[in-house]
């Protein structure tokens, strides 16, 4: 019971309370870049979920079985980026094969997951928080889920705003950022919900 509730807390915390995009402000680049259309946003969500979950587990393994035993912690960043880059290349090829249209839609943002601070952030935070293998996988998945949630919601809002007569001065990124800010304020309501 307590193990499961712990797991649930980790997920809830990563998805809502400490949402990567809206409270940690990580991964803003794809958040603004691919939220123009819901379909692309959903595709991106799955790509990020895949990369984040695997990256957090793989980085945990590397940390525990290579970096710590060999005392190579100074190579942490380069190792993690290597992992993430490999995963991103892999998913890029996969998406190109499975859904060429999605591939076109994601455009430059797909390879850019490599340098996405959210992914690297998850790997590093995992290590900092001394998570176990399972919790680090959960944490990575939860963070990705949170990213996916706000990305999809935000894309819905943006699609709705597409037809709106936004004043000239606020067109484009301005109103998008204001909306993101409002969402972020709303997500503050979750603060304190889970004490992790």
């Amino acid at each position: 019971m307590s193990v499961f509730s712990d797991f649930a807390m980790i997920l809830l915390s990563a998805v809502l309370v400490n949402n990567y995009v809206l409270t940690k402000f990580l991964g803003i680049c794809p958040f603004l870049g691919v939220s123009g259309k819901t379909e692309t946003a959903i595709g991106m969500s799955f790509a990020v979920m895949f990369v984040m979950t695997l990256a957090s587990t793989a980085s945990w393994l590397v940390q525990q079985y290579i970096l710590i035993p060999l005392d190579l912690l100074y190579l942490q960043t380069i190792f993690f980026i290597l992992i993430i880059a490999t995963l991103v290349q892999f998913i890029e090829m996969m998406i190109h094969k499975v859904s060429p249209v999605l591939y076109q839609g994601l455009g430059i943002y797909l390879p850019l997951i490599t340098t996405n601070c959210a992914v690297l952030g998850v790997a590093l935070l995992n290590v900092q928080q001394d998570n176990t293998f399972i919790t680090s996988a959960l944490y990575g998945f939860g963070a990705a889920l949170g990213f996916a949630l706000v990305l999809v919601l935000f894309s819905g809002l943006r699609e709705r705003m597409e037809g709106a007569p936004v004043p000239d001065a606020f067109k484009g990124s301005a109103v998008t950022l204001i909306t993101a800010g409002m969402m972020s304020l709303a997500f503050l309501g979750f603060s304190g919900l889970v004490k992790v």
Partner: protein
Amino acid sequence: MLEQLMYAIASLGGFALLAGLILAVSSKIFHIEGDPVSDKIDALLPQTQCGQCGFPGCRPYANAVASQAADVNHCVPGGERTMLAIADVMGVEPKSLDQEEAIPMVAFVREDECIGCTLCIKACPVDAIVGAPKQYHTVIADHCTGCVLCLEPCPVDCIDMIAKPELLEHWSWPLPDTTRAQTGLERRESHQHD
């Protein structure tokens, strides 16, 4: 100290090699035949084969756009809608058209002037002109794409482009006259998305 360095080089190198191997294998698995994006674009083009885009037909232009060798805005007969559809497929910003969209036209042969040389028949990319040598030629209006490729070869200039007759069945409601609808239309046409 040296030992440490060796560990570092070996582990990083080994790991990188492993990653490279995985990618090499997966690139074999996910190898793609052909270009599905080009097919998609070809399906959007009006197939007039007019060559106004600077390519010798619709398929070549589709290939060029898919490989990002050409812009999305070169299809003149396709007009605004085709350009937007292609931009959508390619995931790029829409661009304004090269030329103003013209009203749909069809070729018409002034039969009393036609000398029956068959040059226009050979030029027509969609076999829309019928006629035998030394006979009057006629344009099948329903098949004509209005590509004007037949005008040039005609030695006696007996081919005119006439506006396609508007049919009652093809009439459709225009956008409402309300300000809200019209401002939306203007915004769409100025391509200030986002």
